[in-house]
Every structure is written in structure tokens, then in C-alpha cells.
């Protein structure tokens, strides 16, 4: 997207609207309207609104994505146990069915909202917006959004998060970034999870995963960790602390706008 005016004209499509381009002509009797808006502009609008909510309360929002079973919930449990207790955490859980993951989180004394998506394979900004109605953001420093386990669909939907973290677990194989470039390209941090299995599943080469990430021009840092034996956890916890302070610095320079809610319905935000 163009940073100046927010339009979506890029090198890839500008030729369509130039004189002589396919979208420049108008046939008789019909009116051609050039739009050039994202197909997800409704979602993106709500995502922006969510992000502003997080910013107003100085809350860092992190979207955790991975395939099912890569260890997102286990990572959150280990994080809750080990992160500085002055940092207050809330979790939004996305699954097709069950409250299982939210209950796992609540057992650690942390507030968790479960979103059951039914048959939907991803979370979207509207679902997060609904969840935020049940969360008093003023009580928290960080909100983790655990997306639906899926390496495809969640990548297309902005939720209003500040950062994307993608887990790549050792049993999945090291070539996932080459197979799912859309998701891995959007990652601000890649975690090679279940690293305690590296000695057993020795066909997973972290170096190869790194190369595949370079192939998609990813500059995201890569950390190896195990929620089970806690190896590598400290680097992840340091990264979180660092991101919280970076966000706070950013908000000092760019304070959140106290927007007038453009909600079409009346409701109260907690």
C-alpha cells in the first residue's frame, strides 16, 4: 500500500490504470469504476481499530501462528511461568471447537478468552474486536492472540496485532518456510519449537530452515527453544521485554488517537 495516500497502486498494477491500460477504458452504456481497494478493506479497517484500542492502553499485541500441534499453547504456558511477574498477560485463544486451550491458560491464573470459530480456519479482526469487549485492556501489558493452528489462512487476515510470531516445530520439517512463504514472510520472529527433539529428529537442520527463510527475504530473527526443557526460553523472554519497551517508545512519539468510535452500534468497551 502507498504510504502517502493509502491507495493500493503498486509497480505490479499501475499499468492497468495508465492511459491505454485495461482499466482506463469505459465501454458505452456502462460505467467503469476504478476501485483499487484491498478485498479485505473491511477487515483491515476493524484491525486498525483494534490496534488503536491496544495502543490506547499501551498493550502490546502478539499474534502467534503455526500449524496445529507446533506448541503454541505450551509456549504460552511456559512464558506465563517464566516472564517477569510485573508484566501482566492476557490471552485470546482461537480454535474451531472446545475451551481446552483457554482452560489450560486459566489454570496458570491468567485471563483467557476463547473464540470458537466453528468451521472458520482463521481468526479475523471482527472476532478479535468481539473478544476485546470482554477484556479490560487497562489491566494488561501484553495480549497474546493464539491463532487457529493453520499455516495458510491466518496469514491473510490482519487482526490489529503489532507483531507476528510463527512457530516451526522440529517434527514438521525444516522446509516449511519454502512451502508456506506467505505466512513466514509476515513473521517478525520465527521460533523453532520443540528443540529438545533436535537430537532425535536429526534430519531437521536449523541452518536449512534459516536458508529457506532467507530465500523469502525474511529478516526476522530465529530462535530455537523448548517449552519442555526450557532451553532457549530466556532469549524469547528477552525479545518480549525488548518489544514492550520498543512499543512504549513508539507510543511516546506517536500517541494513540483517542478516536471517536465509528461503531454502527452502541456498546461499552471494558
Amino acid at each position, binding site marked *: 500500500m502507498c504510504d502517502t495516500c493509502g491507495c493500493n497502486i503498486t509497480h505490479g498494477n499501475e499499468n492497468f490504470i495508465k492511459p491505454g491500460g485495461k482499466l482506463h477504458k469505459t465501454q458505452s452504456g456502462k460505467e*467503469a469504476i476504478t476501485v483499487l481497494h484491498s478485498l479485505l478493506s*473491511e477487515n483491515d479497517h476493524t484491525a486498525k481499530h483494534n490496534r488503536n484500542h491496544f495502543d490506547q492502553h499501551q498493550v502490546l499485541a502478539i499474534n502467534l501462528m503455526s500449524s496445529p500441534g507446533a506448541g503454541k499453547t505450551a509456549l504460552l504456558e511456559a512464558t506465563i511461568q517464566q516472564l517477569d511477574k510485573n508484566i501482566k498477560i492476557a490471552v485470546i485463544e482461537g480454535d474451531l471447537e472446545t475451551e481446552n486451550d483457554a482452560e489450560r491458560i486459566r489454570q496458570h491464573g491468567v485471563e483467557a478468552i476463547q473464540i470458537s470459530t466453528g468451521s472458520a480456519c482463521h481468526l479475523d479482526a471482527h472476532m478479535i474486536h468481539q473478544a476485546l469487549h470482554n477484556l479490560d485492556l487497562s489491566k494488561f501489558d501484553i495480549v497474546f492472540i493464539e491463532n487457529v493452528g493453520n499455516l495458510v*489462512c491466518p496469514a491473510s487476515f490482519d487482526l490489529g496485532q503489532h507483531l507476528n510470531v510463527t512457530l516451526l516445530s522440529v517434527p514438521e520439517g525444516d522446509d516449511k518456510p519454502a512451502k508456506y512463504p506467505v505466512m513466514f514472510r509476515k513473521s517478525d520472529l520465527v521460533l523453532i519449537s520443540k528443540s529438545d527433539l533436535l537430537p532425535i529428529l536429526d534430519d531437521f537442520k536449523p541452518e536449512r530452515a534459516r536458508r529457506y527463510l532467507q530465500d523469502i527475504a525474511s529478516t526476522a530473527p530465529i530462535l530455537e527453544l523448548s517449552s519442555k526443557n526450557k532451553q532457549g526460553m530466556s532469549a524469547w523472554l528477552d525479545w518480549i521485554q525488548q518489544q514492550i519497551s520498543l512499543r512504549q517508545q513508539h507510543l511516546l512519539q506517536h500517541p494513540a488517537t483517542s478516536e471517536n468510535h465509528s461503531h454502527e452500534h452502541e456498546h461499552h468497551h471494558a
Partner: protein
Amino acid sequence: MHELAICQSLISQVENIALEHQAKSVSLIVIGIGPLSGVEAQLLKNAYPVASAGSVAENTQLVIEYLPVKVKCNECGCESEALPNKLICKQCGNWQTSLLSGDELLLMSVELEKDDTLDDTANDASANANIH
């Protein structure tokens, strides 16, 4: 299969545009998709009849423009086409590149048929009057 959700969002946008321009129907929708958008064009096409049923865009021709993946090298500045999972510079092989295009998911244009039948009837009537 998130294409249905995306298709529903597309229909909702097209409906708003048609309403805004007081169109009676939509004859053509052009969308642009890059391979790095994460959306499969064929699945979007399959979802279209379901998502558009009963809307102003039902039976509308859906044209999909496939936008290429292009990168610019952060080192040598060369602009080149690339594969979705190989975003490296064709000129010097550097992996540190910036994406110029290829992740778009755009509603590019719509062609509307306006409700101007009344005007046409009036014109026809005056044309006939001149002949007689």
C-alpha cells in the same frame, strides 16, 4: 479455505459501490491477485457463485488479473521478477530484497449498468416523433 470469507467481503464492497452509483446491476468485476496474497484464484472463482447468490453481483463476470512477484535488490537496486518462495535478486543473487508487487489482493474495478431505461425511452420517443 478462507476464499469464501474473502469472496463475501468482495461482494459486500461491490454492493456498496453499486448502491452509491445507483446501478441496477454489475456486469464485470476485475480483481488483482498476487501469489503472495495467500489466496488461490481458482478457489475464489469456485466460491463466487455461492457468495454472490441473491446479490447485485449475481451472475457477474469475474475477471482475475494475475499480478507478478517483483522484487528490488537492497544491494544493487536491480528490479526483477521472482518466485514466491525465492525472493532473491536475479542480478546479484542477494537475498536482502524488498517486495515491489506480488502480495496484492485487490478489487481493481467494477463495470456498472446504470438504471437509465427511463432516459432511453424518452430519447426513443423523441426520435420517433422526428421521423413522423
